[in-house]
């Protein structure tokens, strides 16, 4: 079993590296710097860290001002508050002015665990994806998270980088580079496409292993860039395999599954199944329990693929 690290751990570490390299990064957080790991930047570069207190709207507004003046601000807090509480600030100040604010909140999805539904953000991809100019990245592991943060730091304009609390296996090597708008083929296959993002990439890979034992050859895509979306790439895979399962730790409404449906509908209509949280809020429990409870495990993906194969022409 490979080493497990949470994607959030990449935030503070990468910001320190970037500052070391002379990139003009700053972090603005809202009383969660330990959890988001921006405290690492605060420790190494106290002048590059600003705590606004528990005031997420002000966090986004302050970051916007820093961006106006040419700094590269990353914001912290939890996904639920950074996107939900501060939505108007993200829309009307950051995106409408096309400012280089890099939202990198942590604790997205149900793998937050016992804190429960109030803290398990399942709608953030949907909220961020509809904003003109926003780039939405969902890294699958620690290495991809670091690469996403680096990419955002050197690319002008707004970014949303979705980071998680729970440890996930490190699947990429140090040579990994994030490609905006490109999915990564982790496994080639011909019978069904499993398009996954974030913590679901691990599950999709395991599902592909299980399906392989039955002679089903699944193609696994890590769709870490939800926007810009690799629509043509997904369509090409769908044309080859004839069926797609979208897998996300997010509501099935508005997230990766929706983006895949849009792409397939326009470019390559094939049977589609969406594995994700089915229009309900989260609940308290341990991450692994919740993955099973909400039907987000490798088994659930494999089952969805088996059902889909029956519908395939």
């Amino acid at each position, binding site marked *: 079993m490979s080493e497990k690290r949470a994607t959030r751990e990449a935030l503070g570490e990468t910001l320190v590296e970037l500052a070391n390299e002379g990139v003009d990064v700053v972090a603005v957080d809202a009383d969660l710097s330990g959890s988001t790991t921006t405290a690492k930047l605060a420790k190494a570069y106290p002048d590059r860290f600003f705590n606004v*207190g528990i005031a997420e709207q002000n966090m986004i507004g302050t970051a916007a001002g820093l961006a106006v003046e040419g700094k590269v601000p990353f914001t912290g807090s939890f996904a639920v508050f950074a996107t939900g509480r501060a939505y108007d600030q993200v829309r009307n100040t950051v995106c409408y002015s096309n400012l280089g604010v890099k939202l990198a909140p942590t604790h997205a999805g149900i793998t937050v665990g016992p804190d429960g539904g109030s803290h398990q953000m399942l709608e953030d991809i949907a909220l961020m994806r509809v904003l003109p100019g926003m780039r939405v990245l969902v890294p699958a592991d620690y290495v991809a998270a670091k690469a996403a943060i680096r990419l955002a730091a050197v690319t002008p304009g707004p970014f949303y980088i979705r980071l998680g609390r729970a440890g996930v296996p490190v699947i990429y090597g140090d040579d990994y580079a994030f490609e905006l708008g490109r999915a990564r083929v982790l496994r080639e296959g011909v019978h069904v496409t499993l398009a996954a993002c974030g913590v679901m990439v691990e599950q999709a890979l395991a599902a592909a292993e299980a399906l392989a034992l039955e002679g089903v050859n699944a193609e696994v895509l890590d769709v870490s860039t939800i926007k810009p979306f690799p629509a043509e790439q997904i369509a090409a895979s769908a044309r080859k395999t004839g069926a797609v399962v979208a897998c996300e730790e997010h509501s099935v409404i508005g997230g990766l599954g929706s983006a895949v449906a849009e792409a397939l509908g326009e470019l390559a209509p094939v049977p589609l199944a969406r594995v994700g949280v089915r229009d309900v809020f989260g609940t308290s429990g341990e991450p692994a329990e919740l993955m099973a409870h909400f039907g987000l495990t490798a088994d659930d993906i494999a089952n969805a693929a088996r059902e889909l194969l029956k519908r395939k022409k």
Partner: protein
Amino acid sequence: MTDAAQVAAIEARAARMRYEIVEMIAEAGSGHPGGSLSAADIVASLYFGVMKHDPLRPDWEERDRFVLSKGHAGPVLYAALAEAGYFGHDNLKTLRKLGSILQGHPDSNKCAGIEVSTGSLGQGLAIANGMALALRMDANPARVFCLLGDGEMQEGEVWEAAMFAAHHKLDNVMAIVDHNGLQIDGACDSVMCLGGVAEKLDAFGWEVREVGGHDVEDLLKALTEPPMTEGVPVAVVAYTIKGKGVSFMEGDAGWHGKAPDAEQTTLALAQLAEALEGGAR
């Protein structure tokens, strides 16, 4: 109205609640002990000395309402609700577990006695105001008590709501600030200086009562006396100690949001058990 026997009875309730707070968070393996313990005397005073309520009729129209704006302190509310008889004490063991009525943050759809779900800080006072407005429209004499954290006062919505309550003369709403001086990243005044919560609320048009938040007698007085001027909402700023009752948690921001391990739990429960016995003075 506040006699010594009543005060002692409430102190005993608060002591039991503290014991249960630590016990349930330890059992859950996660949760927020610091801000639950700091609020125990306030919440015990409300539930057992101030509020009109009936555990057998959680929907009783004339009940006084409680909004836990600082929702992460759910365990203090759960302990009070169990003490009052809204549900069995055995439920406390299920805190934060899959299928529990006691979610990581209070969920009004899962647990009787919880008026509204909270957990996203800064929103409770606006909700309480709305409830108070509706009660006034319906000529319902019930009151609404809203408990906020001091760090929580950094949220802008709190001050929008503070302005609103004074403007609309909502003297049936009461804001109580658990002023323990700490939040997650450290002391409130180092994270984002609050600069005089009492003075600020006063400037927003509230009648402010400052009180020791672990002195039940004073709390009862502050929480029950009618406003000095009709139509002026009352805020009780209660000075408390975060982690109150557990020596190694007191005044340490590190105990905001983590569960004690087995050894720490034994030590904490021993201290709280001692307080329980001493409480029946």
